[in-house]
C-alpha cells in the first residue's frame, strides 16, 4: 500500500509540474539559506579561531609599559611570573631593528629579536637546522643567533649559514641555526628576523628593560586563574599604578568570538527558518488546492474501497515528497553557495553530517506538519458529497 501511495503521489506531482516546482522552490530557498548561512558562519568562525589559535592559544602575552621609574620588567619579575601555578615557562621578547653585515653585504633595518630557551622549547617546529637558544646562551649572554629563512637565503645564496659569523650592530655573532619558512600570521613572520638570546639582544640593541613576555600555560583551561595571578604580580611590580601593563589571553578572545558567532549562527538560522516556514505554508496551500481539485477523485476512491487512512497517507506522502525534494535540492544549493563563499572569503569549507541530517529532517518535518491538515481534510470527505462535486 505504501508503494502504491508513493506511486500515486508521484504521479500527481508530475501531473502538476509548474505548481509542484514552485512549491519545491519555496522549501528549497528555506533549506538552502539555512545550510549556506550555518556553513558560512561556521567556516568563517573556524578560520578566525584558527588564526588566533596560531598566535598561541596556550599562551598569555604581557605587555609592560611600566612606570617612569621602572620602564619594564626585570629578571626578578620574570622568575616570579614563571612560578605562577599552571605556568610551564615564560619567554621575554626583546625586539629592535639594526644593521647586519656578512662578507661585505650590508643590510640595514633588520629585525632582531631576543628570546630565551623556553621559546625554542615551546615553538619547537620553527627551527629548520642547527640549534636554538639554550639556557647557557642566555646566562652567558653568548654572541650567537638563529637566522630567518629569507634572510639566510639572501645573505648566503644557498651556502650553509650555520657556523658562519656575521656582524649585528657591529658585534660579531656566530650563527647556530636557521628558522623554517614561516607562513606568517596577522602579527607578521620571522622570515626576515634574527633571533638571539634575549640577554645578548638587550646588550646588542641597547635595550634596558623587558617590555613583552609570553607566558606559556601547562593547562589552558586555567587561563583565568593564571591571568589573575599574573595580574597580581604585575600590579605589585608596578606599584599598583594604572595603565602600566596589559595581559592578553588568546583563549579569552577565542571564547568571546565563539560566543558571538554562536549567537550569530542562531540568529541567522532563525531568520532562515522563517523562509522555511513560508515554504511550509506554500506546501499547505498547494495541498489544500489539490484536495479541493481532486474532491471527486477522493469520493471515487472511497467508493471503490479506499479507507480514510489510505487517502490520508496518499496526500501526506505527496507533501512529504515535495518538501523532501525541496530539502535535498536546497541542501545541494546551500552547499554550492557555501563553497563559493569559502573560495571568495578564503576559509576551509566543511559540512557536517549533522547539517545534512538537519536539512533533510527539517524538510521532512515541514512536509509532514504542513501536509497533515490537508491530508486529514481529504480523508474526512464524505464520499457522497465528494462524488456530487463536479
Amino acid at each position, binding site marked *: *500500500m505504501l508503494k*502504491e501511495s508513493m506511486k500515486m503521489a508521484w*504521479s500527481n506531482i508530475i*501531473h502538476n509540474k509548474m505548481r509542484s516546482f514552485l512549491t519545491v522552490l519555496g522549501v528549497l530557498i528555506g533549506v538552502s539559506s539555512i545550510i549556506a548561512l550555518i556553513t558560512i558562519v561556521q567556516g568563517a568562525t573556524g578560520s578566525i579561531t584558527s588564526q588566533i589559535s596560531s598566535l598561541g592559544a596556550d599562551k598569555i602575552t604581557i605587555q609592560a609599559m611600566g612606570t617612569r621609574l621602572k620602564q619594564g620588567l626585570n629578571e626578578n619579575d620574570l622568575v616570579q611570573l614563571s612560578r605562577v601555578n599552571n605556568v610551564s615557562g615564560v619567554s621575554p621578547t626583546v625586539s629592535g631593528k639594526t644593521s647586519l653585515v656578512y662578507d661585505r653585504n650590508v643590510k640595514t633595518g633588520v629585525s632582531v629579536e631576543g628570546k630565551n630557551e623556553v621559546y625554542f622549547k615551546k615553538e619547537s617546529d620553527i627551527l629548520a637546522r642547527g640549534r636554538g637558544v639554550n639556557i647557557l646562551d642566555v646566562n652567558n649572554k653568548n654572541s650567537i643567533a638563529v637566522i630567518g629563512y629569507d634572510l639566510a637565503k639572501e645573505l648566503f645564496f644557498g651556502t650553509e649559514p650555520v657556523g658562519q659569523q656575521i656582524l649585528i650592530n657591529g658585534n660579531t655573532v656566530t650563527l647556530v641555526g636557521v628558522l623554517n619558512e614561516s607562513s606568517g600570521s596577522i602579527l607578521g613572520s620571522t622570515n626576515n628576523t634574527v633571533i638571539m638570546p634575549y640577554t645578548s639582544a638587550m646588550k646588542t640593541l641597547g635595550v634596558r628593560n623587558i617590555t613583552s613576555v609570553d607566558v606559556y600555560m601547562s593547562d589552558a583551561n586555567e587561563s583565568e586563574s593564571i591571568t589573575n595571578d599574573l595580574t597580581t604580580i604585575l600590579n605589585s611590580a608596578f606599584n599598583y599604578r594604572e595603565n602600566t601593563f596589559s595581559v592578553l589571553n588568546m583563549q579569552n578572545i577565542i571564547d568571546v568570538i565563539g560566543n558571538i558567532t554562536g549567537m550569530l549562527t542562531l540568529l541567522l538560522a532563525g531568520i532562515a527558518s522563517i523562509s522555511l516556514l513560508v515554504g511550509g505554508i506554500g506546501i499547505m496551500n498547494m495541498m489544500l488546492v489539490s484536495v479541493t481539485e481532486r474532491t*471527486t*477523485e477522493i469520493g*471515487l*476512491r*472511497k*467508493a*471503490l*474501497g*479506499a*479507507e*480514510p*487512512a*489510505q487517502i490520508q497517507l496518499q496526500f501526506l506522502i505527496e507533501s512529504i515528497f515535495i518538501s523532501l525534494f525541496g530539502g535535498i535540492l536546497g541542501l545541494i544549493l546551500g552547499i554550492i553557495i557555501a563553497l563559493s563563499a569559502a573560495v571568495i572569503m578564503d576559509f576551509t569549507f566543511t559540512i557536517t553530517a549533522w547539517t545534512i541530517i538537519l536539512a533533510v529532517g527539517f524538510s521532512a518535518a515541514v512536509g509532514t506538519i504542513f501536509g497533515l491538515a490537508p491530508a486529514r481534510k481529504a480523508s474526512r470527505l464524505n*464520499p*457522497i458529497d465528494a*462524488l456530487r462535486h*463536479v
Partner: protein
Amino acid sequence: MSEILNMLDIVKCYFLDAEELVVLNKINLKINEGEFVSILGPSGSGKSTLMNIIGCLDVPTSGKYILANNDVEDLDEKELARIRNREIGFVFQSFQLLQRLTALENVELPMIYAGVSPENRHKRAAEILGRVGLADKMNNYPNQLSGGQQQRVAIARSVVTEPTILLADEPTGALDQKTGQQIMQLFKELNDEGRTIIMITHDTNIARYSKRIVNILDGCLNEGAVS
C-alpha cells in the same frame, strides 16, 4: 437462492433549517443472489439516496440494513470502506474514470485497495477489459475513448473484484440510445453469468432489460411487473 440484501423500514430524512424532509419512507427491500433489479422512478423520487444507502456510501436515519450478512449500522468508516470494496461494484452515470490513468489502470484501482499484487492486478484487469470488448483499448486514456467505451471501462472496474452486487445509477443516462442498448446488453450478459445487478433508472425502456422492476415514488417502494 440466497438473500444478499435486506432492508427493513429504511427511513432517510434530511433536516433543512429545522424542517424535516423525508426522502425515503419505510423502505422494505429484499434482493437475492443472481437477480437483475431495476429501481424505477422519476427525478427527485429518492433513487440516488437509496442507491447511496445500498452502496454503503450513506447511512439511513432509521431502519435496518443487512448486506451480505453484515448489519451496516455496526460498521465503522474503515469497515464500510472494506464492504464497499468487497461487496459493491459501482457504475455511475458520469462514468467517474480518473482522467490521468489509462483504461487498464482505472480497472486496477479497486484491486489496489483490495491488496491484490501488481502482477495479478494487470492480468485480471486485462482479462476483464477483454471481456467487455476493449482488449485493444487498454492503454487508452478516458479522453481517447467514446462514452460507450468509457462506460464499459467503468463496468469492467465494477466487476473486477467480483463484488456481490453491481450497483448502477442511471448507467445509460449520458449515452445515446444505441450505445445505451449495447451497455444494457452487456449488463444482461453479466447477469446471465450469475452477477447480481441493481440498476437505478427513470427510463422504462431501460428498466425492461431487468428481470424485476421496483417502482419508487416520493420515497415509497412499490413492487412492479416482472418483464
